């Protein structure tokens, strides 16, 4: 029967065509990525290290979720279960822009922290300002500072391992991640999954996350929070938290603005946070000695700077 192809041949053809299209899609992406990498003299936002860190954090998140699932199912080989599905679930997480942006920002933050330690000898965990706050008269501020110190130590440790504990995610991302996990698992959710999810949600406490504790310290400092905008004294973590809160940006945006091609955003952010032009210049040069701080920052009021920032948001981040 030469005229009509058998159903099997048709399905083979379809499969091949699909594979071909998938392959093409990947090839199409080569050009923009290559041209971007080649035209960007600075790879600090996309260095191999950053990419590896993001991958590491996503995989760690996937493993933790799967381990919780295996635990709820009572499976013996928990590690093996996580091993089997880890890569695929992590890949699923790669599809979440918000999660990627968060991990990316954490990687950049940690890189900056290490850079400042090498360059100026700023302790990644215990900065002079944190030290001061530990002895603050306001006992609630002091205890928040103490908790943030512990959290920062945990952060340093996990970043060195390229990990990200589930319990450190902001609430929205945590929720997103669990929804992503559900989507990955498909329509039917097993009892074990439901139990695991309930347990994870129950155990989650946003108030104990490092980012939340940093924000709480900044909030508790009140008008005194301006002191956290000196990166030498505050350290990277507290600095970016203060910058984000006081300028009305997300912490992700605040971290990205420390990149040396983002001097305009950084300057505006610092202005919106309440620094005067001399201090802004000092901070900008501190982060990048070769930077050319924008002129005329003194001409902007805090409100104008804030408005300019909100009118030109970084797309793709929250």
């Amino acid at each position, binding site marked *: 029967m030469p005229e009509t192809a058998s159903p099997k041949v048709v399905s083979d053809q379809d499969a091949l065509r699909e594979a071909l299209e998938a392959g093409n899609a990947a090839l199409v992406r080569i050009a923009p990525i290559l041209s971007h990498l080649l035209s960007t003299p600075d790879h600090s936002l996309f260095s191999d290290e950053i990419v590896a860190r993001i991958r590491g954090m996503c995989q760690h998140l996937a493993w933790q979720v799967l381990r919780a699932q295996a635990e709820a199912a009572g499976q013996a080989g928990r590690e093996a279960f996580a091993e089997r599905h880890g890569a695929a679930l992590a890949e699923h997480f790669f599809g979440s822009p918000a999660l990627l942006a968060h991990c990316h920002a954490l990687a950049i933050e940690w890189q900056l922290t290490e850079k400042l330690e090498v360059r100026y000898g700023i302790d990644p965990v215990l900065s002079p300002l944190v030290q001061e706050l530990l002895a603050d008269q306001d*006992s*609630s*501020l002091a*205890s*928040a500072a*103490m*908790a943030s110190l*512990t*959290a920062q130590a945990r952060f340093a440790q996990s970043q060195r391992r390229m990990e990200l504990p589930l319990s450190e995610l902001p*609430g*929205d991302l*945590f*929720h997103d991640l669990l929804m992503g996990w559900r989507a990955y698992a498909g329509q039917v959710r097993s009892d074990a999954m439901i139990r695991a999810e*309930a347990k994870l*949600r129950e155990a*989650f*406490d*946003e*108030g*104990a*996350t490092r980012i*939340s*504790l940093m*924000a*709480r310290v900044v*909030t*508790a400092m*009140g*008008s005194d929070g301006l002191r956290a905008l000196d990166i030498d004294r505050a350290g990277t973590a507290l600095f970016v938290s203060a910058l984000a*809160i006081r300028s009305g940006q997300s912490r992700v945006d605040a971290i990205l603005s420390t990149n040396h091609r983002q001097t305009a955003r950084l300057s505006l952010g610092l202005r919106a946070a309440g620094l005067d032009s001399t201090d802004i210049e000092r901070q900008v040069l501190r982060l990048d000695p070769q930077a050319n701080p924008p002129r005329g920052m003194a001409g902007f009021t805090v409100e104008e700077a804030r408005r300019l920032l909100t009118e030109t948001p970084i797309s793709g981040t929250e």
Partner: protein
Amino acid sequence: MATVGTRYLAHARTDGEGRLTEADELLAQLQVACGGAVGTRVAIPELLALVEKAQRYGLRLARQFEAVDGEHRITAWVEIAPLTDEAGEVDGCTIDVVSWQSEDLPPENDIAAARRRIEINRHLADCTARLDSNQRLLSVETEAPDLADFAEKALANVGKPWTDFVDLPGNAHQQPLHWRLLDGARCEIDGSQRGWTAHLEPLGQPQPGSAGFVLYLSADRPLAIADEGAAADTSEGPSFGRDLTPVLRQPINRIIANAETIRTKLAGPLADEYSSYAADIATAAQHLLALIDDLSDLEVVESEDFTTAPDRIELADVARRACGILGVRAREKGITLVAPPEGESQLAIAEFRRVLQILLNLVANAIRYSPEESQVWIRLDRIGSRALITVADQGHGLDEQQQERVFEKFERLGRSGDGGSGLGLYISRRIARAMDGDLTVESAPGQGARFTLSVPAADDLRQKPR
């Protein structure tokens, strides 16, 4: 939270609908300043978003929120924990305030303030009109029913100045004045009970107003409330609940406080009888206070779903309590109150406070309308399953027509100036019927009147069942 030793500044709870069910002062005040109250939905916008998020996710969240209470910008750090009910469903949240910073609002710059004012006028205006550069009407638009006449008249007179159609009290100048002088002017409009404020938004550049104006008329209160007020005005004068309760509460509270001072002889030694008079004053005033609440709830009593909280009560107790409260007033007129004799008993199913309220009303009426040196009897009785309490006086009595009208609202039977409101019997009968009872009158001219309250009877549990 396990990691931080925290001293909470305030605590609050919300229910599943996002209503603030309880709140410490700090949050309660902010809630009120934002236009809510304890019991209504969280009115603090950022906090509401957080509460809803925590509830939806079923996650404990810790975040900062900002709010403005009118004078201050408040920055607070809160921890929000969802609560789960027995079924495992999230049902409300707890809110714990960890830190609270309040700073004065920066002065608003004039341009922003003007822009905001225009926005507010735009949103609140019940009527907008387009005027030409000489403030003459081009078009009028309104959805407010009380401005319908005004709009009709104005539309029939397009081309005349808008000031021809409103009254500008205290402004006798030749109209229209320069728009800046009229902007924000108070005015009155025929056909509307409400007070109005006119705002003029100039159009055109460079000379503001060269392309005409938009006229916004904003009322001083929403129409719904205005309507209620108008209805109350025609039928019963100032509304008791809304207007008089706050005014009365204060002096009565002072009476109680002073009477208590005298009773307890705090201000110095005093004869015992005066002290006991003071106790009567305090008791009476306290009851008056409760009555004010009841009267201010007149609408509640009148509503179909008004209910009482029935209980087993001893009618003899109620009668004696009423005689005690009104004894002084009766003695002043030389009237003897004859309470049920000691040992007489009649149990009933009714609400004590409500029966006392009815009885006080009946006895007070009896005292008020009886001749001096007469007697007022309070008798207990039982007919079948009904427990009866009767107040009988030796007054002029009522003819049949009067008996029919006496329970009507505001019925004074032609009397005035004796302190009655015409509401007492009306409310009493309403309450009696709400308790599955009734209030009736028997009388004949010159023979006194007998008001009988009947409520469901209860059997004495101490007696052996028959």
